C-alpha cells in the first residue's frame, strides 16, 4: 500500500468506477489459457464438488461429483479432471528450442510455450494445492488403485501451485490479484476479493456504476460466489435437497442431471466474468520484462515436464535444504520482479519517486564531455543537473540509474533544493566522449532511481545429504506408504 494507490482508490470513489494503477500488463497471458473454476464441499478440507473449465469461452466443460462423499465418484471426477489438465499441459508445449549448453556441457532445452491456468481467486489456488496434495501420492495398483491420471493430476497441480508462490510467475494466475495489480477500486481489499464486486467496479454493466454493480455482486442469490466455497443458502436450499434426491434415487441419471444444473447455475456467471476479465487484461500492452519472466516459467515447465517420468511426487514438506533454497529463490524473484515492474511502468516508478528513492525532472544543464582526471587515467564523468519537484530522499554519493535506460549509471553529487547534480559513471561507451544521444541534454525529461534491476547472484547451499546437525542432519528418504494410498479422502 502506498499513498499513490490510496489516492487512486479515492479517485475511484469520486469517479464511480475503477481507475488504473498500471499502464502496462505485468503478467503474461497465454493465447489459450485454461480457465478453471473449482467448487468444493463446505466443511471438508478438499472434497471437490465441481469444476467448470476449458480453453474456449463458448464451450466450457463441467465436471461434477454428484455425491462428494462417495469415494468412487470422487476419484472418477479426479480422473476426468486429470485428463483435462494433462491434455492442456501437453497441448501447450510447442516446439523444443535447443539452447547453448550449460557451463558443464549439459544440453539445455526450452519449450516454446507453457501451459497457463486462470482461477478466480486465492482460495482457488489453496484448493488446487490441497487437491494436488490429496491426489499425488495415490497408488495406481494394489487394493486402493486409482486411475493413473489421478496422481499425475496431483503432481501437476502441485507444480502449478508452487509456481504461483513465485513473484512474477504467470503459469497460475488468480484474477482478483491480477486485476488489483492493474486497477484500484473504491472499496477495500477485502471486498475486492469478491471477483464479481471487483469486476463491477472495473467494468460495470450497462446502466450501472461501480458501487451499484459491486452491491449487486454482493448478493449471493443474484451473483454466486466465485468459489471455491459455495453460498450457504445455496447449499441448504438447492444443493442438499438435490444430493439427497440423488442418494434416494440410487444414482439415477436425472437426479444427477438436476445436481449438474444447480451447480452450473453457480458457475456460469463466474465463468463469464473470468473471460471478460481476461479481455480487459489482454487490452493492456504487455510490460517490457514480461517475456523475460515468462521465459523463466517456460524453463521451469520444461524441466518439470522432461523429468516427470523419472521423478517421485513432490515431498509433503520441504526438507531444510529445500526450504532454504526455495526461500532464497523466492526472495530473488521478488527483488527482480519489483525492480522490473518499476522500469516497465511509470506508474509503478512513481511509487519510488513519491518515496524519494527515485526522482524525475528536466535536465537544466549538462557537461557531456566532462573528464575526471584525478586518477592515473582520465575517466569520462559527465555532469547532469536536473530540476525536480519530487521529494528526493537520497544521500549524496548514492548510486542511481536511468529509468528509461538502466545501463546508464550515475552518482548523486549534490542536492540543492529542487536541483540534483549527477555525475554519470557508466553506460556511455568505452571512449572518452560519450556515444551520441546517451547523455541527457538540457530540456530532456529524465527519471533516475536508486533501485537497480540487477539481482544478486544465486547462493550456495549444502546438499540434502549434507544437512548439518544444527538442522537435524540429513532427512530420511521418502518411502511411499500404504497410508498415502489409502488415506480416506475426507
Amino acid at each position: 500500500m502506498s499513498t499513490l494507490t490510496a489516492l487512486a482508490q479515492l479517485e475511484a470513489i469520486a469517479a464511480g468506477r475503477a481507475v488504473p494503477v498500471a499502464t502496462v500488463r505485468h503478467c503474461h497471458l497465454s493465447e489459450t489459457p485454461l480457465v478453471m473454476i473449482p467448487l468444493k464441499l463446505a466443511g471438508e478440507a478438499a472434497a471437490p464438488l465441481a469444476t467448470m473449465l476449458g480453453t474456449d469461452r463458448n464451450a466450457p466443460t463441467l465436471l461434477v461429483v454428484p455425491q462428494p462423499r462417495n469415494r468412487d465418484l470422487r476419484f472418477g471426477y479426479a480422473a476426468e479432471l486429470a485428463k483435462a489438465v494433462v491434455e492442456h499441459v501437453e497441448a501447450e508445449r510447442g516446439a523444443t528450442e535447443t539452447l547453448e549448453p550449460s557451463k558443464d556441457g549439459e544440453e539445455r532445452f526450452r519449450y516454446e510455450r507453457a501451459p497457463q491456468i486462470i482461477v478466480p481467486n486465492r482460495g482457488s489456488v489453496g484448493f488446487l494445492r490441497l487437491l494436488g496434495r490429496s491426489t499425488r501420492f495415490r497408488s495406481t495398483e494394489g487394493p486402493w488403485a486409482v486411475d493413473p491420471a489421478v496422481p499425475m493430476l496431483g503432481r501437476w497441480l502441485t507444480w502449478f501451485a508452487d509456481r504461483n508462490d513465485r513473484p512474477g510467475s504467470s503459469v497460475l494466475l488468480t484474477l482478483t490479484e491480477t486485476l488489483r495489480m492493474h486497477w484500484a477500486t473504491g472499496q477495500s481489499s477485502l471486498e475486492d476479493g469478491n471477483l464479481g464486486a471487483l469486476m463491477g467496479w472495473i467494468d460495470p454493466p450497462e446502466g450501472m456504476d461501480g458501487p451499484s454493480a459491486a452491491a449487486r455482486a454482493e448478493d449471493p442469490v443474484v451473483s454466486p460466489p466465485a468459489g471455491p466455497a459455495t453460498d450457504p443458502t445455496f447449499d441448504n436450499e438447492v444443493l442438499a435437497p438435490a444430493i439427497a434426491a440423488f442418494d434416494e434415487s440410487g444414482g439415477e441419471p436425472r437426479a444427477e442431471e438436476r445436481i449438474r444444473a444447480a451447480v452450473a447455475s453457480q458457475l456460469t456467471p463466474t465463468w463469464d466474468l473470468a473471460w471478460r476479465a481476461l479481455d480487459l487484461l489482454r487490452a493492456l500492452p504487455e510490460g517490457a520484462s514480461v517475456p523475460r519472466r515468462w521465459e523463466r516459467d517456460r524453463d521451469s515447465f520444461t524441466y518439470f515436464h522432461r523429468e516427470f517420468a523419472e521423478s517421485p511426487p513432490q515431498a509433503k514438506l520441504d526438507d531444510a535444504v529445500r526450504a532454504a533454497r526455495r526461500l532464497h529463490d523466492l526472495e530473488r524473484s521478488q527483488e527482480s520482479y519489483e525492480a522490473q515492474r518499476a522500469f516497465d511502468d511509470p506508474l509503478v516508478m512513481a511509487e519510488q519517486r513519491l518515496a524519494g528513492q527515485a526522482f524525475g525532472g528536466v535536465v537544466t544543464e549538462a557537461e557531456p564531455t566532462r573528464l575526471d582526471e584525478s586518477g592515473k587515467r582520465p575517466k569520462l564523468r559527465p555532469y547532469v543537473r536536473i530540476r525536480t519537484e519530487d521529494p528526493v530522499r537520497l544521500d549524496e554519493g548514492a548510486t542511481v540509474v536511468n529509468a528509461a535506460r538502466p545501463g546508464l549509471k550515475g552518482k548523486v553529487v549534490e542536492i540543492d533544493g529542487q536541483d540534483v547534480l549527477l555525475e554519470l559513471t557508466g553506460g556511455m561507451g568505452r571512449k572518452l566522449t560519450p556515444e551520441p544521444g546517451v547523455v541527457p541534454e538540457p530540456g530532456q525529461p529524465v527519471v533516475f532511481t536508486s533501485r537497480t534491476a540487477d539481482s544478486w547472484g544465486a547462493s550456495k547451499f549444502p546438499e540434502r545429504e549434507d544437512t548439518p546437525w544444527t538442522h537435524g542432519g540429513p532427512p530420511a528418504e521418502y518411502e511411499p506408504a500404504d497410508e498415502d494410498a489409502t488415506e480416506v479422502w475426507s
Partner: protein
Amino acid sequence: MSTAVSSPAVEANRVVEAVLADLAKDHRGVVVDSPPGAGKSTLVVRAAAHLARAGERLMIVAQTNEQVDDLIDRIATDHPDLTIGRLSAAGYLASERVTAHASVRVALKADDIADRTIVIATAAKWATLTDGSWPWAIVDEAYQMRSDMLLRIAGRFERALFVGDPGQLDPFSTVEVERWAGLSWDPMRSAVSVLLAHNPGLPVHRLPVSWRLPASAAPVVSQAFYPFTGFRSGTGPQDRRLELGAGGMGTSYDRAVEEAAATGWALYELPARHTLRTDGEAVQATAALAVRMLQRGPVAHSERGEAPVGADRIAVGAAHRDQVAAIRLALGPYADDITVDTANRLQGREYDVTVVLHPLSGRRDATAFHLESGRLCVLASRHRHACLVVARAGIPELLDAHPSAEPVRLGVPVKFPDGWEANQAVLARLGEHRIRADS
C-alpha cells in the same frame, strides 16, 4: 552459602565461568542469551581467547562488517598475541580499527589466512565458502541470523557457541510464505530457535546483569521484554548520574531534558493527532530534544568515571527509514555527529543518551510491524543514562483499540513477549515521566 544476594559482578561472572566450563564438555553447541548490554561482546572476546589458548582454531561469525570490525578491535586490543584473519568481500575497505593491529591480516580467500588462530567474517561471507572446517565457531548476534544462513555455514564448524539477544528484532524476509510455518527448520526462524528445536539438550545460559542499562531502565525493560527470564542492572541508582552543565530556559524541551537527566526517562508528549509517518512536529521535537540535550552540556558520572556527553554519545532512533531521513534533515549540521538510525540498525549499539520517536506516535491504526516488541525493545535499551521518547498523546487508547488477533500457526512457538503487552507495560512506565509540549 552466602546469605546476602551476591553482587552483580559475581553473579555475572559465575554465568560466564559456567559457559566457559561447558565449552570443555562434550556439547556440540552452547547457547548464551544476553539481554541488552549484558556483556555479550566481552563474553565473545573471552570465549575466543579461552578456546584459542586451549589450542583450538576457531571461526567467528558476526552479522555486519561493522560488528566484525568491532570484534577484531576488541580481541586484538585485549589479546595482541592471538593471530587474527579477517575474511572480507571484494569491495571492503579495512577500517582503521582493523589496520591498526599488527596481528590482523585481511584477505579475500580463506587460504590466505589459513595460519590464523582466529578467522572472523560476516555470515554472508562465510556462506560463500564451500570447504574448510574449524573445530569451533562463535556465532555472534545469533538471534538476528536467519536459520537458512546457519544452514549454509554450519558445515564449516564442528561445534559452536551461539551468543545473542532474544529480545531484539526477529530476522525477516521480503516474501510472505506460509509453507514452512511450524517446521522446526523453517528458514525464516532465527538460527537459535532452529538449533534448539533440533538439539533440545544443548545448554542455554543467560547473562543475568545488564551493565549498560541504568537502574532506572533495567527493571522496565526486563519486565516488558524478558518476562520469563529477567535480568538486573549492574549498577545501583546512585552509580549513574547525568548532570547538565548549562542552564535551561524553562521550555518543555528543557523540562524534558531535565526530567530525563534526573530520572533516566522522559516522555515528550505532543497533542493527539493522526499524522503521516514523517509527522513534521514529532520529527522536529525529536531533533530538537537531541540538540537541546547537547546544548545543556551533559556530563555523565558513572562507574567509569566522569565524562562529558558529546554528540557521538547521543543517538536518535525511529521505526522507519523515511523518519530517519526526515530527522537527519531536521538536525541539520548536528546530523554529522549524532547517530540517527532505525531500530534494525541500532541493534547491538550503545550510547549515553537516546531520543526515540515512538513507533506508534500519531498512528490511527497499529499494525504488527509497529507492535513488534523487538522494535521497541531495541529503541528503549540503547542508553547508559537516559532515554527520551517523543510521542503523540493517545497511544494507550490506540493499543486498547487494537487487541492482537493474529492468526495462529500450529507448531510455531508463541512469541514472548507479545508486542501489545510489552507496549502497554512500557507506556505505563513512561507515563510517570510525561512532559507535555508547549502549545
